[in-house]
């Protein structure tokens, strides 16, 4: 077991790669009642097309999410219930590129950890339970599709991407989940839920060696990850559609815009890029800019205005949005400011302050057990770790930020999705 002390943030990381290929990361936190365990697979909604032993396989949209729901079924009962009985608060989620099962607990941690490893490693599906789950997931899809925030986001992704499966809803559709059988679930589990395609993170007042022993007891020797995912025909550099819109019963327009970018391939370059991207957007239109206060004062943005650097399986986009009376104006103003900075250069004093704030924010993140687990799992899958964010942030240069703005915040690569409030019938008269 390796031990690394990160002086800047006052945290220690214990890590070990087991014989079967599974990597385990433990961060001890003294004096806390709760402990957190996070067991993740490098497999998500976008991984629906893969090649295994020379054969091509396509599985229905929404299967990774469906699989996540069904994993809780075990021969001896339902893991959600069993974990709750142990006093744990379990949960799980599926995104476009990761599936994670986790729990937080203040007691019976060892028992709960064993159960977590067991239920995620053991596929148990009956056609009957698959059929029943279709009802529940069908309801979930309906509820999600009901949500205008989800709609504006999905519309943006369809506007940005012509082919890439990141444009498909994580839960799939009512139709696509109808095609899922116990057999396809088992095949996906066997293909992707293999130890060297997974990671376990534990944060809490635990003894690292004890945790490692428990994990070694529970895990089976596994096969190696040998499937290779493919993501459709090459995605063109340009966006698919510049502008898409829809209507819902909402009180004010909702918008989401995105710059389609080429992302760094992985590892530390990707970790760094994420920090530079965030800094770049902040310097253009973040809360500390004159542009932000002007737009806020004019009433064209409000506290919902937010942004994110989104990457998934080779795609990358700088996404921003929120509620706005005039989404097109917001987008034009952001773009104009990006172009102005690209031409005139940025405010060095502002960058200095933003870096200080970003350092503070990164140190802050190590207070959250969930954030540490999620950040470490995703960093590990990229080939890096999540414990050097303050240093990486301090290293960001003016040139890097300017380069991002010049090359990536480009009008031609921008797509805009808006959901407008439904017009009242009275307006027609």
């Amino acid at each position, binding site marked *: 077991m390796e031990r690394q002390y990160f002086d800047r943030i006052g945290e220690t990381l214990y890590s070990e790669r087991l014989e079967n290929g599974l990597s385990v990361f433990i961060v001890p936190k003294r004096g806390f009642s*709760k402990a957190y365990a996070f067991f993740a697979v490098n497999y998500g909604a976008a991984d629906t097309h893969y090649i295994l032993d020379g054969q091509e396989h396509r599985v229905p949209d929404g299967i990774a999410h469906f699989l996540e729901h069904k994993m809780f079924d075990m021969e001896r009962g339902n893991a959600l219930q069993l974990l709750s*009985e142990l006093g744990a608060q379990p949960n799980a989620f599926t995104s476009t590129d990761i599936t994670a099962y986790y729990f937080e607990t203040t007691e019976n941690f060892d028992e709960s950890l064993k159960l977590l490893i067991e239920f995620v490693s053991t596929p148990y599906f009956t056609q009957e339970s698959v059929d029943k789950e279709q009802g*529940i997931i069908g309801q979930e899809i309906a509820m999600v599709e009901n949500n205008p925030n989800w709609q504006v986001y999905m519309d943006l992704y369809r506007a940005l991407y012509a082919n890439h499966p990141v444009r498909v809803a994580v839960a799939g559709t009512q139709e696509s989940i109808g095609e899922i059988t116990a057999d396809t679930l088992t095949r996906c589990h066997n293909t992707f839920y293999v130890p060297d395609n997974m990671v376990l993170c534990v944060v809490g007042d635990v003894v690292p060696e004890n945790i490692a022993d428990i994990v070694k007891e529970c895990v089976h020797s596994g096969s190696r990850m040998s499937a290779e995912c493919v993501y459709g025909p090459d995605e063109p550099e340009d966006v698919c559609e510049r502008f898409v819109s829809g209507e819902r019963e*909402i009180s004010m327009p909702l918008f989401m815009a995105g710059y389609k970018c080429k992302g760094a391939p992985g590892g530390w370059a990707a970790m760094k890029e994420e920090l530079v991207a965030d800094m770049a957007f902040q310097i253009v239109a973040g809360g500390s800019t004159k542009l932000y206060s002007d737009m806020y004062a004019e009433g064209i943005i409000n506290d919902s205005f937010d942004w994110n650097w989104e990457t998934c399986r080779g795609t990358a986009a700088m996404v921003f949005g929120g509620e706005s009376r005039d989404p097109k104006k917001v987008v034009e103003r952001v773009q104009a400011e990006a172009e102005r900075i690209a031409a005139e250069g940025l405010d060095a004093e502002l960058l200095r302050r933003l870096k200080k704030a970003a350092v*503070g924010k990164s140190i*802050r993140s190590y207070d959250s057990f969930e954030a540490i687990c999620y950040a470490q799992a995703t960093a590990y899958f990229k080939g890096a770790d999540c414990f050097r964010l303050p240093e990486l942030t301090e290293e960001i240069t003016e040139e890097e930020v300017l380069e991002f703005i010049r090359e990536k915040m480009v009008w031609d690569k921008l797509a805009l999705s808006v959901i407008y409030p439904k017009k009242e019938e009275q307006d027609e008269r």
Partner: protein
Amino acid sequence: MDNRIRREIMPGVFLTYIPSERFKTCYMSISLLRPLEKGAAARNNLLPRVLDRGTAQLPDMEQIAARLDDLYGARLVPVVRKKGEVQCVGFASTFIDDRFVDDKELLEKVTELIGQMLLAPATVGGRFINEYVESEREKLIEDIRSVVNDKRRFCLNELVKAMCINEKFSISNMGTEPYAKLITGSRLFRHYAEIIGSSTIEIFYCGSAEIERVTDALEQALAPLPQGEKTPVHTINRGAPAKPKFLSSETDGKQSNLAIGLRNPVSIADVRYPAAALMNSVFGGSATSKLFMNVREKLSLCYYASSSYFKHKGIIIVSSGIEKDNYDKALDEILAQLKAMQNGEIEDWELESARQGMIGSLRATMDSPGMMEDFYLSRAIEGLDYDPDYLIRRLENVTKDEVIEMAQYTALDTVYFLKGMD
């Protein structure tokens, strides 16, 4: 366990202090306690938002944001909470603990900024800056209007408005649009001047600084606070009517939402509170609750079915997302689950699972400064003074009979059905 201290640092100004070295950040909040009133609710909600827009020294958002960035990304946000029939009006702040950065006076600087925001706002001609008041007012109105976007929340609010029509609890924490529209820079300033010296103030600090350093910083920052008699705050509870009400309305969403209001005379101020809270957890407060296991899992009637205990008011509300045609089935099943509890049909595992879940939550509360703050604020409002450990011990001793008794006290008041398009 953390060694908390509660101290009145000035007349009517209370500090709850929790020393801790476990966190990278320090937490400080300040809340003025106000009675929830129709006329004042919107003004109270708007006030911290306007104060947040500028201080005399830093008169606009850009300057405030720059200051916060310079304080290593300190966060300072307006917070207005409704606890029963009390509005808690103020700010919350988190900032990096001194020991991780070069600036060793972060605590003093942040406290000073909070004090200025509260006591030295940006003004012009003896009132708030019109531009700030108008733009925040418009945003408040938008927030009031946007409740309709979240069908679940909208349904719940409509239920409360109907169920508590003659009680203060029906007043939204944001007030109403008509009252919000009436707010001007001078009216809001008059209101501010009225309440700043006449409200009990609750302050909370959690971090690694010594208490004297915290009280010194606060005494300096709050020195200009006007003195005066403090307006009392309280919540009045009521029983269920002889005949329950059944209401409905329509919406364009695909899914339908059901909200069911129940009354229980036991609130957080009552010595039987732990039993009532546990009863709610067994009923619909967790993933192993009767509502989740039966209405959701067994019958697949809905994607979510849960109950919330509004502990200051003695109200339990069931919230569920269903298909329109399942209204009768879902309502019957939900009420059947309550009836079952009243008849004593609670399995040991259901009780223990709920108990362990609540205890786990309380332990988790002690791991989060924000959650601790909310816990202590709820207690302070009711004149209670105990820590999460105490509540854990009480919960450990609640018997099944006590839970059944709490279920028997629970009576149906109002049902609200928000019909979707499907």
